[in-house]
């Protein structure tokens, strides 16, 4: 199957290893990966901060870039959430009904990584090996916008060599929330403090998630406090082999 990678602007610019991991993983499973070089950003930050008008151009650009592909994958629950739940609305609010329909069609073919693996490629054991103690933060948008449920955990339970530790209060937000982390930095940090204390209570070496943005936030806190606990994206674990 030919799959277009929507790497997301954040992973492209700051976490390229995540994109490379998705490529390695899908190719190992026997699929062809395309990287439409025209891609930029889904516009989620603009929409969520109130700049719907500015987001319209980004939505149009995203739709045009990914329209030719039958399956699109992104290593981010929140960017897929934006594509699925915001793009058509932004187009409609901008008075472009035709774009809204096209956006809905692209959204219907866009999957978060665990959705693609479990629902489309029908694989739960990707043959990964990762000899570490890891806890998993399920992320708000994956849980409550996409309803991915336990798909990431089903994939992780099949990873050889890995000890998966249950994260207390897993469904609670880490406090990132895009520009919320800056506009309400104190509240955001208070939420992060509780998330970190839960992560540390597991004794894990690393905390994983399906979203670079949440990991950037949790990792930024863990690093600031010199906890020695690191972050690792779900894709990086699943791409690892012996």
């Amino acid at each position, binding site marked *: 199957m030919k799959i277009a990678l929507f*790497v997301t*602007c954040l992973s*492209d*610019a*700051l*976490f*390229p290893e995540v*994109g*490379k991991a998705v490529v390695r993983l899908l190719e190992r499973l026997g699929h062809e990966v395309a*990287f439409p*070089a*025209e*891609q*930029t*950003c889904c*516009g989620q*930050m*603009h*929409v*969520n*901060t*109130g*700049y*719907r008008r*500015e987001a319209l*151009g*980004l939505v149009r*650009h995203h739709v045009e870039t990914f329209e030719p592909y039958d399956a699109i994958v992104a290593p981010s629950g929140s960017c897929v959430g934006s594509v699925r739940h*915001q793009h058509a609305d932004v187009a409609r609010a901008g008075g472009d009904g035709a774009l809204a329909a096209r956006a809905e069609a692209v959204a219907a073919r866009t999957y978060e990584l665990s959705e693609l693996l479990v629902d489309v490629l029908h694989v739960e054991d990707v043959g990964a090996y990762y000899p570490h103690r890891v806890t998993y933060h399920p992320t*708000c948008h994956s*849980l*409550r*916008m996409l309803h991915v449920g336990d798909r990431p955990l089903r994939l992780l339970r099949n990873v050889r060599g890995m000890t998966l530790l249950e994260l207390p209060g897993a469904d*609670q*937000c880490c*406090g*990132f*929330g*895009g*520009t*919320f*982390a*800056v*506009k*309400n*930095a*104190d*509240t*955001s*940090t*208070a*939420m*992060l403090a509780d998330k970190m204390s839960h992560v540390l209570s597991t004794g894990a070496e690393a905390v994983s998630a399906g979203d670079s943005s949440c990991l*950037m*936030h949790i*990792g*930024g*806190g863990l*690093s*600031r406090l010199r906890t020695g606990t690191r972050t690792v994206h779900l894709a990086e674990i699943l791409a690892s082999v012996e």
Partner: protein
Amino acid sequence: MSTDLGLPRFAPRGVGHLRGERSFPAAARDALADSQLRRNLGHATSTIRAKRAAVVAERADWEELRAAGEAIKAATMARLDEHLERLEAEVTRRGGAVHWARDAEEANAIVTRLVAATGSREVVKVKSMATQEIGLNEALAAAGVDTQETDLAELIVQLGGDLPSHILVPAIHRNRAEIREIFLREMPGVDPALTDEPRRLAMAARSYLRERFLRAEVAISGANFGVAETGSLLVVESEGNGRMCLTLPRTLITVMGIEKVVPSWADLEVFLQLLPRSSTGERMNPYTSVWTGVTPGDGPAEVHLVLLDNGRTATLADDVGRAALHCIKCSACLNVCPVYERTGGHAYGSVYPGPIGAVLSPQLTGVEDNASLPFASSLCGACYEVCPVRIDIPSLLVRLRAQHVEARREASRVPSAEAVAMAAAAWTMADPRRFAAAEKASRLGRVFGRRSGQLTTLPPPLSAWTAGRDAPRPPAETFREWWARERG
């Protein structure tokens, strides 16, 4: 002279409690530093969350119930005028008097006049959000009337000279040691040997309130529902103190927001299942009181209903935003909100705190009077998941953020720094060449300081990030550069 074109108006300034003195981030900063508050809230919200989850899990048809609640509310709002006129006609036909209040000032004036007409100088009150919203206690105090809150938590708030911080549990920010201190300090005739045992605290409140119930001639309440087809009003509660107020005094005055009307009794079948499970985590609340006009020889001889707008019609005018009016004030969204759990209710500056407050208060006052509230959320979606009438609070928050940005754009020809940054980012990201160039430029930062690891300081506004968190250093090669090199 101005001409009133009948356009809906926002809740007026200078009266009531819908606006805070400070922005949310500023108020939250102080609340977050209060370790006692953090402990009290963390304990209380996690207890209620667990209770709610347990009783909701018992119902296999919970999602259908939610959908029914949403549908009934949406249909009711679509013909609100008709239902309200029916309610008025039925209340009147059964011996009650109906008064229409455009805003807090009118409502306060009506109630003050009605109380004055009874000749009584004191009233007992049933816990009510609408009367807190309009600042009725202050208005009555200014007219020389002494109001006594009778809900235990409202009593704690009133005696403590405090404001409610939660819709259901107004004193959620207090623990029992603090409550004991407030009672010892402020409650007339209290036993000086009072302990902080919950039973002893409740007994102290009971003996203090009993005396007030027995001598009160006037009671004031809100209403959870007003049933249009019979003109019946409902109050649901846990303590029975509300029922004392609703049955003992001669005069009963009810202030009800116009969105509280439901067309028929059949609708209550849905809401009386949704509300207690969502709010106190009970299958059924202990007391449900219903009164229909005046029944000679049974309960109050004089019954008034004040129908309150105070920005509700203005909210109704937005075909999407009006969903905030569907709220049945259960407070489930407060209890699951990670922001509310840490800041408490006072930081929101309005009697309606938490996620629902962040979408309701700015619509009642106009978004610019509560501009920081729509941003007081990480959009985690926990509120939407538990809302018994399926209000999509995260989407409403985003919508209000956009309205605020548009209002700012119209108000000033000079764009804000944020607007400039957002426009620049959108321009850059609308083109892959510009985006790749920006990625390269961000890497120039690598020449400063250490060449690997994390960034510990960034310039404003990102300094707010690095105040508490490290930031990733841009990598030597972006993904797209790697792809071009490897596969291009």
